[in-house]
């Protein structure tokens, strides 16, 4: 799966690329962390950072695994299901450790996890503005 990073398709409309989306997720994570810091809820910062890291890592790994799986011409690479299931188990384990350890604020963790949604929203808004 070659990611050219080209922002526009043949019809002139902006094309969603994974790299720009990853950038937007990181930007939104930074905005979430900055917002929490500005509000002054410093105890939420580690949880939010952890949630943002998990959201970004989850998206990155999904892209890597499925990208490799579909890179084979006329077929699907074997073993990607195992990788996907292992990724999911690791994700569940990470969430379990974060929530049950008690060291991280859960609300902050959920806010950080939401940076994926904010990133997608940001990407959609920016591509809509570019199209206009």
């Amino acid at each position, binding site marked *: 799966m070659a990611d050219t990073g080209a922002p526009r398709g043949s019809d002139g409309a902006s*094309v969603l690329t*994974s790299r720009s*989306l990853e950038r937007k997720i990181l930007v939104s994570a930074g905005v979430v962390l900055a917002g929490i810091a500005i509000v002054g809820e410093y105890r939420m910062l580690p949880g939010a950072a952890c949630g943002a890291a998990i959201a970004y890592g*989850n998206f990155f790994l*999904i892209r890597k695994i499925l990208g490799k799986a579909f890179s084979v011409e006329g077929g699907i690479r074997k073993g990607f299901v195992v990788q996907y299931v292992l990724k999911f188990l690791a*994700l569940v384990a990470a969430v379990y450790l974060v929530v*049950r350890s008690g060291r991280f604020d*859960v609300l902050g963790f959920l806010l950080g996890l939401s940076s994926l949604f904010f990133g997608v929203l940001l990407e959609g808004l920016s591509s809509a503005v570019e199209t206009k």
Partner: protein
Amino acid sequence: MFRKVSFTFLLALLFVAVATAAFAAEGTAAGTSDSVKTFIALAAGFGIAIASFGGALGQGRAIAAGLEGIARNPSAQPKIFIPMIVGLALIESLVIYSLVIAFILVGKM
């Protein structure tokens, strides 16, 4: 087919409602905290069950539609692939939200 599934679902719901009432009655006799714990366990279990059911259904539909599109028009793979990944990540995040809530609920028991 749909009738059978809905009938089975309603039957399961009825069973759970009866069991809940029975547990609640037992909890009242033993103390309030027991019934609260029962409802917490039910909420966590049902929450994660519904979330995983919806997530699995959504991911299955997304992947099926994406693969069908790629199979019909292989040249459109880059245009289909990235939105499919984004959709999968979003669906998975929603399930993780409910997992977090379930963990929090279980922690309160």
